[in-house]
């Protein structure tokens, strides 16, 4: 795992722990020659459906990945009141990007989804925004300059 810490929300951790336990159960049943439970039968029931039932190599690899995350995670928590005006993990940031409005949530790599505005704290823009406050202008410039002006910061962590 290269000593990597996974920053993760409580909800995501719960989801991954559940998957980890279910996959361990599938692996156990497979090793006993029993039919694996069809927990992932339909992707409509589980939108993040991934079937590992046919390939034992993929199954083990996913179990190892989940184990690494569960053992090396740090929960994303709301900062104390005096620090809520500063961008940190979990912040929902309203920004003005060269005159265009946008909104990002700063998340850990496991939950990043730029198409939905979830920006990784390890991406150049995520990294650049961290530690800044409302009114700050943050520029990323090599080789093309873009300026992100922070308009608002809030935390909606459960």
């Amino acid at each position: 795992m290269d000593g990597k810490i996974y920053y993760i929300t409580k909800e995501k951790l719960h989801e991954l722990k559940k998957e980890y336990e279910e996959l361990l159960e599938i692996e156990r049943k497979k090793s006993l020659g029993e039919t694996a439970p069809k927990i992932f039968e339909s992707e409509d029931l589980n939108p993040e459906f991934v079937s590992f039932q046919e390939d034992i190599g993929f199954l083990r690899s996913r179990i190892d990945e989940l184990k690494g995350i569960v053992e090396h995670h740090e929960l994303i928590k709301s900062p104390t009141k005096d620090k809520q005006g500063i961008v940190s993990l979990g912040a929902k940031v309203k920004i003005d990007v060269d005159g265009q409005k946008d909104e990002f949530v700063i998340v850990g790599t496991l939950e990043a989804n730029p198409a939905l505005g979830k920006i990784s704290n390890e991406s150049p823009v995520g990294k650049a925004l961290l530690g800044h406050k409302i009114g700050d202008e943050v520029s990323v410039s090599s080789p093309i300059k873009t300026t992100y002006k922070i308009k608002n910061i809030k935390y909606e962590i459960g």
Partner: protein
Amino acid sequence: MDKILTFFTEIGKLKELKRRGWVLREIKNPESVADHIFRATLMAWVLGRKKRGLNIEKVMKMALIHDICEVYAGDTTPYDSILPKSKKEIRKLLRTWPRFSDSKKKRLSEKKFKKEKTALEKLTRGLPKELAREMMDLWIDYENGKTKEGRFFKQMDRLENFLQATEYWKKYKNLSQKSWWDQARESFDDPVLLEFMEKIDKQFHKN
């Protein structure tokens, strides 16, 4: 075997399907979807070797199937829902990365996912069941960034596009690079791919 042959002839159409982003930018003789898949697969293989613990076979299979749904779903860009009528306005729009409200981001993402999933189901219907299933699983993993392979290839896919954009910029000069740089700096967080992005920058901008 008839149904398997049909699958091959259908995916063969991707050799002719031009990538929408380049068509909108009026690039002469732009790459096809198959061209993009070809280089993205090789890039995933070569750069994936630098990632410890990454299942290269899985990443390459994912690369091969990630855009095949476009046979029926077509290639789309984030600009499609806001395209103005005049060519002049389109050119202006394409200079920056499009920004949407949270609800519109969600709506566009769900609509695209549904359309492409239906297309992939139709395309793989005649294949052996376990193979069709494997393709769907890999595609959903790529779409949702479920596993480390899915997260790696999602960014790899964009990196291939980023490289192609830089090459067209070098060739045609009038292509604005800003939208790719904005997208890349907001999307990439994989250290191997970020390092490679710097190499592209060095190679194309500083030489």
